[in-house]
């Protein structure tokens, strides 16, 4: 099992889309950039989710909690103490890490699994949402409005879209790199082992609880960076658009559609789902509800016809096609 | 009565049963002997139609059952008492038995069969309103058999009926099996305790690694050197 030759090939294959992505802002309009930012951003978040739920198999329905904690921490520090979000995002990640470790610790300590863990994470996110709705110091329901400072790169604020585009791109690439590194490391082996057979992993010396908590913590901290990006891009956050269950759904859908537990899944999922939402909305937005109906239909179709996600499904189909 | 013809069964991508063929004639007890994981339970489950056949056919009383859903197979009188009993643990003993006579003929004759089961296992009558899970292992096995009898089987397939039971209970089980047989029921018996099961059987075969490696009269198998060594601990 040598990596050198396929490895080289991998780099050459990677380089083409990378160059396209790098030069895209030169000729792309603002709208296309905006969509691309969304794609990268959701690919990033979904990859964070994937690290926990795809690899370790601990299904989270409450990733909005970590997004919200990240967004609120950096934005609060920025609006109250003028701390640049570049620093704030690391503090946000730290806070989110603590929240993640806390949630992970108590859930796994009591041995929550499967649907129970999923519902518990959803409840935690709801608790945070209700809490922040009622915390006047965090802006309560009014949310936090970030002070506009014009073009201030040092404060994570930019005139145009291109800087956000590059930040989102870098975030996505970093998350992919992290997932790739994890997949090949001891930790990744342990994550997958826990997913596939927890008892057996335990017998092979894997501290399953510790590694599950690590997965939650890592995923939470990474998601928090996304929160800061979200806040800086929109310049306005409120509990209902950060902690909402729908945000969690949005995050996880991309991974599931693309293929859970694969490095490429979340990215592919985001490249499918984000434009899909845009396209259905611009073509079917005329009649209320029509495009989201289609969206729901597509989700159901994926479940029934491509239950492993689009990427593994297509791969399977392709190999069958080739062999015939 | 039962004619299994060249069946192949896969679990995942592993071929568990390889071209298995055998017949069971009415009124006999037939034992399947073999090591763990050889495919004995898979065999029974494919006859019960829980597992799909890759190829081959199964005929029961002249009817092809290879495509029927599991519940129709039961209705025909081809009933399995599964390994691990699979009782409805929070249902009462009576409810468990009633579920046995859930459909067709079994439902119509429910009260008669119930009397028959209670006379066979008087202890169940005493425990009628208890939850199944509060029974002891032996009682649970009796209930499992009783529940199977409620389906009015023509051919009863028992998967490891003595598993984890005390010797005394095992004896009762085998007594019951013999008694049922004497009353005209055909029985297919899968047993870990090969010596015991062969001793009450008319015929038997050895299933190893998904293949039938030996078949014939029960005494022949019991006296064979290989089986003696491998399964009879002699």
């Amino acid at each position, binding site marked *: 099992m040598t990596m050198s030759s396929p490895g080289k090939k991998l780099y050459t294959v990677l380089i083409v889309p990378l160059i396209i992505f790098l030069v895209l802002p030169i000729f792309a309009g603002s709208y296309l950039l905006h969509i691309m930012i969304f794609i990268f951003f959701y690919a990033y978040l979904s990859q964070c989710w994937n690290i926990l739920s795809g690899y370790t198999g601990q299904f989270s329905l409450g990733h909005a909690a970590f997004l919200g904690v990240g967004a609120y921490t950096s934005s609060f520090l920025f609006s109250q103490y003028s701390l640049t979000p570049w620093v704030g995002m690391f503090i946000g990640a730290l806070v989110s890490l603590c929240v993640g470790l806390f949630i992970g610790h108590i859930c796994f300590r009591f041995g929550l699994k499967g649907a129970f863990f999923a519902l518990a994470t959803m409840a935690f996110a709801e608790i945070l949402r209700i809490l922040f709705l009622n915390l006047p110091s965090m802006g309560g329901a009014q949310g936090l409005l970030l002070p506009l400072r014009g073009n201030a790169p040092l404060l994570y604020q930019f005139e145009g879209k291109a800087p956000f585009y590059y930040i989102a791109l870098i975030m996505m690439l970093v998350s992919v790199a992290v997932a790739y590194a994890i997949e090949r490391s001891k930790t990744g082996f342990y994550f*997958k082992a826990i997913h596939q*057979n927890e008892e*057996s992993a*335990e*017998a092979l*010396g894997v501290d399953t609880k510790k590694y599950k908590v690590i997965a939650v913590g890592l995923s939470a901290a990474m998601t928090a960076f996304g929160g800061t990006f979200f806040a800086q891009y929109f310049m306005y956050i409120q509990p209902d658009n950060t902690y909402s269950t729908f945000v969690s759904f949005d995050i996880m859908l991309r991974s599931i559609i693309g293929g859970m537990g694969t490095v490429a899944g979340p990215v592919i999922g985001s490249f499918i789902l984000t434009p899909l939402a845009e396209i259905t909305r611009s073509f079917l937005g005329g009649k209320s509800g029509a495009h989201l109906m289609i969206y729901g239909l597509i989700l159901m179709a994926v479940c029934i016809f491509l239950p492993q996600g689009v990427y593994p499904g297509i791969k399977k189909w392709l190999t069958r096609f080739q062999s015939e | 009565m039962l004619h299994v013809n060249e069946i192949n069964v896969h679990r995942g*991508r*592993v071929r568990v049963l390889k071209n298995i063929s055998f017949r069971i004639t009415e009124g006999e007890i037939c034992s399947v002997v073999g090591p763990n994981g050889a495919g004995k339970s898979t065999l029974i489950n494919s006859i019960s139609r829980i597992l799909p056949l890759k190829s081959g056919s199964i005929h029961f009383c002249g009817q092809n059952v290879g495509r029927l859903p599991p519940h129709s197979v039961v209705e025909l009188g081809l009933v399995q008492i599964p390994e691990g009993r699979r009782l409805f643990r929070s249902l009462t003993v009576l409810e468990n038995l009633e579920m046995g006579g859930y459909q067709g003929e079994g439902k119509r004759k429910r009260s008669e069969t119930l009397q028959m089961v209670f006379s066979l296992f008087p202890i169940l009558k005493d425990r009628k309103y208890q939850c199944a899970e509060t029974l002891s292992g032996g009682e649970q096995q009796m209930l499992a058999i009783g529940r199977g009898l409620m389906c009015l089987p023509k051919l009863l397939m028992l998967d490891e009926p003595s598993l984890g039971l*005390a010797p005394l209970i095992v004896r009762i089980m085998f007594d019951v099996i013999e008694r049922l047989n004497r009353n005209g029921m055909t029985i297919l018996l899968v047993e*870990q305790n090969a010596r015991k099961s062969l001793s009450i059987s008319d015929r038997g075969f050895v299933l190893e690694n998904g293949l039938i490696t030996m078949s014939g009269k029960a005494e022949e198998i019991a006296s064979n050197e290989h089986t003696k060594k491998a399964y009879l601990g002699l």
Partner: protein
Amino acid sequence: MALLEVQKLSKHFGGLTAVANNNFVVNQGEILGLIGPNGAGKTTIFNLISGFLRPDQGTIVYKGKEIQGLTPHEISRRGLMRTFQTAQAFPYMTTLQNVMVGGFMHDRNRKRVEKSALETLEFTGLVEQKEKKAENLTIGDSRRLEIAKALAGRPSLLLLDEVMAGLNETEIAEAVELIKKIRDRGTTIFIVEHVMQAIMSLSDRIIVINYGRQIAEGSPEKVAKDNRVIEAYLGEEYVIE
């Protein structure tokens, strides 16, 4: 010298006594067999020793230290490893990756772990199956894999739980050879097995349990002649009252 010493070990499930007051030792370098009827408590004893169950009573001393109450991964890190009755591989990983999971216990360097995992596969005769997904292995190979995974963790005491169930005669012979080879490398083995020919030829000593109680202990020859053992396990006719 006693590598593992079990004293007054008991475990109840609800009203059922699964293991009652067991006392035995596993000596350094031996192969100890454990037999008994289904449901006699063999697997429960393995679960108690390997930390998957907590004993209600009793002590388990391994390498001079009490280990009851430790979690399974802590115990396996001390060199006491086990296999499972039903082969429990990681179904979507390749054989090699399965073994690597065990190998990561002592080393985080992927290259080195991969190398030693290959050696383990070689040793267990699985090297040709290294790229195969575990779910697609045959029964024989998945039993080997079960052993290989544990071996990758370099155990000093290996608990083997029915690793020969479902194997044919040649495979059983191979497995016996493999287990002997493992012992010769210096690993002590404690084995539960139903295949009589194997356990009789492998074991230095055998413990027989029934209803959670030890009913006999000694050399294979002695145990095979023991009346209680024949009655409870080997399947002699029961005395009719």
